């Protein structure tokens, strides 16, 4: 579950639910570099906080003025930062030659592929919904509440459903596989920002622009292609960013609830079971998942640059 607050400077309102606002390209290189540096500084600070808390916990033997500290600070519960980093280079299992970072990377790649499939499906459905809702006001009134409502259903409930249906389906001549269920569940999270942001974007053109197209006796389809879609781009790009992040989260949770093997969600669960004997292991998988999310964010960030190159700054 991502926190659905879009990146950086452009976090904005919507009546029906969380949406993203258009944000034009920010001032180029130096600003971006500063952000990266700040990010690294923040990471170092977090590590320092971690170790600081540990040290403090050890020093006061877990009790402060008679109250016990909420989190245990022994090495079993909170391994040292450098222990975690070192664990990456070590073998996954006793006697296995594969290093953990390789396993984690493979798991991340597996999850990424499922997330991408879910993203593609979610974007398609989301766009189709946005177009239908823009075309028919009645469809917007009738469907939009349910689109918003759909996100209140916890994913864990959908998993058995999707897996069960899938078992009896054949899509394009392929038998349904478990990863497809994961992709479907990921798309369930991804379609929402695209539908809502897409609708907002398609409705964005000023009445004068729509009148201009009317004065050209343009058909609805021509107006859609030549006016509404281009006007929607500044709204779609942040929505796509959200959808990408949501696909990853959806894929992870779906992996766990469908019992799919091979992805990084599964690794996290497995490793967490070994936490008492091997405390640093689960952190490696968790960091792998974090890196996966960051990679996806990076890719979509590039997409943002490419698509918004030709636009002036737009604020909702």
């Amino acid at each position, binding site marked *: 579950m991502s926190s659905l607050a879009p990146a950086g400077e452009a976090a904005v309102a919507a009546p029906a639910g969380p949406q993203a606002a258009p944000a034009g390209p920010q001032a180029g290189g130096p600003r971006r570099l500063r952000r990266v540096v700040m990010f690294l500084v923040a990471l170092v600070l977090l590590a320092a906080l971690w170790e600081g808390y540990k040290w403090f916990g050890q020093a006061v033997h877990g009790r402060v003025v008679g109250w016990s500290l909420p989190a245990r600070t022994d090495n079993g519960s909170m391994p040292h930062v450098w222990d975690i980093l070192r664990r990456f280079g070590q073998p996954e299992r006793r006697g296995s030659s594969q290093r953990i970072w390789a396993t984690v990377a493979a798991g991340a790649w597996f999850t990424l592929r499922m997330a991408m499939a879910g993203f593609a499906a979610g974007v398609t459905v989301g766009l189709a919904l946005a177009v239908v809702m823009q075309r028919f006001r009645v469809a917007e009134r009738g469907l939009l509440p349910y689109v918003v409502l759909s996100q209140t259903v916890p994913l864990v409930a959908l998993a058995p459903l999707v897996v069960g249906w899938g078992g009896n389906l054949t899509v394009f001549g392929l038998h349904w596989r478990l990863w497809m269920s994961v992709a479907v569940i990921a798309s369930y999270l991804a379609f929402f920002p695209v539908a809502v942001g897409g609708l907002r974007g398609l409705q964005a053109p000023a009445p*004068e622009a729509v009148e201009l197209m*009317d004065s*050209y006796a343009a058909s609805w389809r021509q107006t859609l292609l030549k006016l509404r879609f281009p006007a929607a781009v500044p709204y779609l790009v942040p929505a796509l960013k959200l959808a990408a992040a949501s696909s990853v989260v959806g894929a992870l949770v779906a992996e766990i609830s469908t019992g799919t093997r091979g992805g990084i969600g599964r690794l996290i669960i497995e490793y967490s079971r070994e936490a008492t004997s091997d405390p640093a292991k689960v952190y490696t998988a968790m960091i792998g998942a974090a890196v996966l999310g960051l990679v996806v964010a990076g890719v979509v960030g590039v997409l943002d640059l490419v698509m918004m190159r030709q636009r002036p700054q737009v604020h909702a």
Partner: protein
Amino acid sequence: MTAEPAATPEGELPAVELLAVAKTFHAGRGGQVDALRDINLVIERGEFVSLIGPSGCGKSTLLRLIANLTDPTAGHIAVNGKSARQARLDQDYGMAFQQAGLFEWRTVAKNIELPLELRGWDRARRQARAEEMLKLVKLGDFAGHHPWELSGGMQQRVAIARALAFDPPLLLMDEPFGALDEMTREHMQAELNRICEETGSTAVFVTHSIPEAVFLSDRVVVLSARPGRIVTVVEVGLGARNDDTRESPEFFKKITEVREALRGSA
């Protein structure tokens, strides 16, 4: 499909005919607005006619009725000898609004090509015409620029180029120079005058500014306050316009005439 109007002898078919036209908004409910009442007007081919009146008098509504962007509550409108709707479907007019309304994701040239794309012109023909139009409005060097890189006046010139792109017999303009400063405005008026002389189009022009109306038009239609009625039509008759026109005594006389008609209408 483009329908070039059938060649008619000069003056046979008026460009625009309005007969007993009325427009009421929200008829029969609370908040009913009588925008226009009993409008009778005939505009001949090649004429430049301005619509002027106090705020809320319905002049923009009148223009939009001609453009078939809204329908009359009563009366009959003929454009180019057809119904207003048919004229719109046949694309017999080009329109320019107060906001230039250019698409920011298109270059200047592509903005001008928009109506041509919708009419199915092939690329070569479109590009050639866009270039021609840009030269006409003296913006030939800006084909590849984006709207936000141009000043307000330049954007309006592009909007006018776009309205002229497919050489419509009729031009409808709703205060297109309203957002410009005085100097640019006078310059644009001279340009518009030149263009209309060259192309011979008919024009219906809505404005707030008396000097602008008098400078540009053959006739100035003065509307009353809401509900709008035609108070009077002033024949301008100033002949060919040039830089000296604005300072000639006849110009001021006509301005006074229009102003008094407006005062009487309030």
